[in-house]
């Protein structure tokens, strides 16, 4: 279909004719801005304003419901002296790195499996999305029961199969508590990886695999030399999103452990919330929330540059 140039499509304004709003908005330039403005306003109101307000707060000694005083970087300096902050930092990195790695490997495996032809494949794909669809708070409450020392189905299975002699304290032991929240995060985030990578897999032409097979390439070689290189951009993008979501995770650890036992599972978001909203130290809470920024910014810039180079 031939497309006429815009100048041909629109009649020129008639001299002396009164200005008409309708005609003005018909112009591409005006109309495109009108379409953009709601989005821009939304971003300004719900992203830019809170972000800059957060920076503003972080530079203040500001208690809830009272006026603040400018203290420069004093809140950040105080955080640097706080051993709990460093524990929270360690926790956040351990949580993010381990959960992301498990999700990446598991998600890739999931994608490879559901990319195969088998009976009930579509149903399986739909079910695999369930953890991602169920509201986090709801599924986390279910996990509270699953990890409960007495009522835990995991403990029950382990005990009755004779694999262990006593119940595990999934949320009471500091190492197991971290393992537990990583496990639940993985359960929730795996479908995101799986479905996104599946979309990537489906772009790979079967001809490539056939050619490689004719040339005698093994399954491992085909995966290494065809699947992985083609999937790499998707993998990087999905990892970037996953790291952002995991790094700033709040609902899951807050509901499951509230940072306990003894801060063993406190992450940046949960601790910043406690400091800002429960303790009412808004300046310090904002500073702690912003402490997430450098690590995430470096990661995002690094991955973006890598993608552009590729």
């Amino acid at each position, binding site marked *: 279909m031939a497309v006429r140039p815009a100048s041909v499509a629109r009649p020129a304004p008639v001299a002396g004719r009164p200005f008409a709003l309708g005609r003005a908005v018909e112009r591409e330039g005006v109309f495109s801005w009108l379409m953009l403005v709601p989005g821009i306003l939304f971003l300004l109101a719900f992203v830019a304003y809170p972000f800059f307000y957060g920076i503003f707060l972080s530079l203040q000694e500001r208690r809830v419901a009272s006026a603040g005083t400018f203290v420069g970087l004093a809140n950040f300096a105080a955080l640097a*002296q706080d*051993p*709990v902050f460093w524990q929270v930092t360690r926790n956040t990195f351990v949580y993010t790195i381990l959960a992301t790695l498990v999700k990446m490997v598991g998600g890739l495996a999931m994608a490879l499996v559901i990319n195969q032809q088998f009976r009930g494949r579509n149903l399986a794909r739909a079910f695999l999305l369930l953890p991602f669809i169920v509201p986090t708070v709801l599924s986390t409450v279910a996990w509270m029961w699953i990890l409960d020392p007495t009522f835990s189905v995991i403990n029950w299975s382990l005990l009755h199969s004779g694999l262990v002699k006593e119940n595990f304290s999934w949320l009471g032991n500091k190492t197991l508590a971290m393992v537990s929240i990583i496990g639940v995060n993985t359960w929730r985030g795996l479908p995101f990886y799986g479905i996104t990578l599946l979309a990537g897999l489906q772009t790979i032409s079967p001809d490539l695999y056939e050619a490689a097979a004719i040339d005698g390439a093994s399954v491992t070689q085909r995966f290494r030399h065809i699947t992985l290189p083609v999937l790499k951009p998707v993998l990087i993008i999905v990892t970037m999103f996953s790291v952002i979501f995991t790094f700033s995770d709040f609902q899951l650890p807050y509901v499951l*452990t509230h940072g306990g036992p003894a*801060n063993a599972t406190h992450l940046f978001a949960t601790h910043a919330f406690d400091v800002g909203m*429960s303790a009412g130290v808004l300046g310090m809470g904002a500073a702690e929330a912003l402490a997430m920024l450098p690590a995430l910014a470096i990661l995002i810039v690094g991955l973006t540059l890598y993608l552009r180079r590729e």
Partner: protein
Amino acid sequence: MTTRRDFLTVSLVATGAALAPRLAGAAGKATTKSLTTVRESSFIKAFDDYFVKTLAPEYEKLTGIKVGYEAVSVGGMLTRLTTMAETKSGPEIVHTGINWPHLFDQSLVDVSDLAGEVGRKLGGWHEQVQEVVVVNKKWKALPWGNIGQLEVYRTDWFKEVGVTKFPETWEDLLAAGRLLKKKGHPFGFEIGHGFGDNHGWMYPLLWSYGGREVDRDGKTVLIDSSETAKAVDFCRRFYQETMLEDVLGWTDVNNNKAFLGEQISCTNNASSILVVAKRDFPEIAKVTDHALNPNGPKGRYHVLNAQGLGIMTYAPDQAAAKAFLRWLYDDKQMSRWLTAGDAYYAPFLHGYDNHPMWNAEPRYMPYKESLKTSRPHAWPGPVGHAASENVAKYVLVDMFAKACRGDATKDVIATAAAQLKQIYKAK
């Protein structure tokens, strides 16, 4: 919708419709026709129901003012209050607890006149509650009752090990706990990051051994003391010899669930366990009782958690809000409301010291008795912002928790001391 012009027209009309009521409202102030209260949902459903289904309609019939009720989930009121105070919008009449009148001092209306009236009519206020609701000599909330944190235990299992009366001291409780754990009935006291059941017994334990976090001046950190060390050592033994490992990760729901699941024989909680047991587990209710927290070498203590109502300064008609509170806190209403609450709230008015609500269930009586030995969180330090920060950062809870998992006493106290010095800006 066929054209871009149609789309824009519809969008503009919709935006205009959305803004119209606000613009109309700004044009002139209408007479107060409604008030809204926000409260954390009570564990006692009948208490909330009585307010919504009986008291609010009565007030509407009397004055024509509709009183709305917004429920906030348990543990969420502080966050809601913070949002309301920061945005200066929301319900006019708000629920306060712990030390919140001090935190939101600048956002709460002075209700000293009402407090004076209510106190005069109902025998005067208990003195200790004034520490948490009176800020700079002004009442910032009207307390209706205390949620006590006491010992909740299984009488049948205690009897099985020869303990017929609840132990008087922490050491005796430890001895009983050892026997009970051997019998398969461990204790379960929350040592995790919940919002109440942890501090509910840890502050009393610290205080009863003579330990204090910070002095009355709010500048001298006192945690590093031999008394604290004794409390920490006791707590470690108490945990290791009587409890489940899991308590280190518990939040407030866990001990209720464990008690009603017959997993534990003793915990520290409000009376909600017995209330729920009576409703859903009558056999457990028959063998459940309450006791005051045990004595330590330096006395017996409980935490003060005064529940009250305050008026936000942004309320468009503060006089109407005050009139409602005056009506609500009148004996004719308050007495019925407290009775509906099944003695869950121990009132701070001497006129209610022998209220008939206490006669219905003698097992709730310790909650009334506990008022005499109740102290605010972080006592004897000042009840203000630093106390909130201290509580929200779980300084005391984590000190005990780390000791329980095996860390050295001096290390956990040193960590707590460093945190407290930072929080209280002490040298």
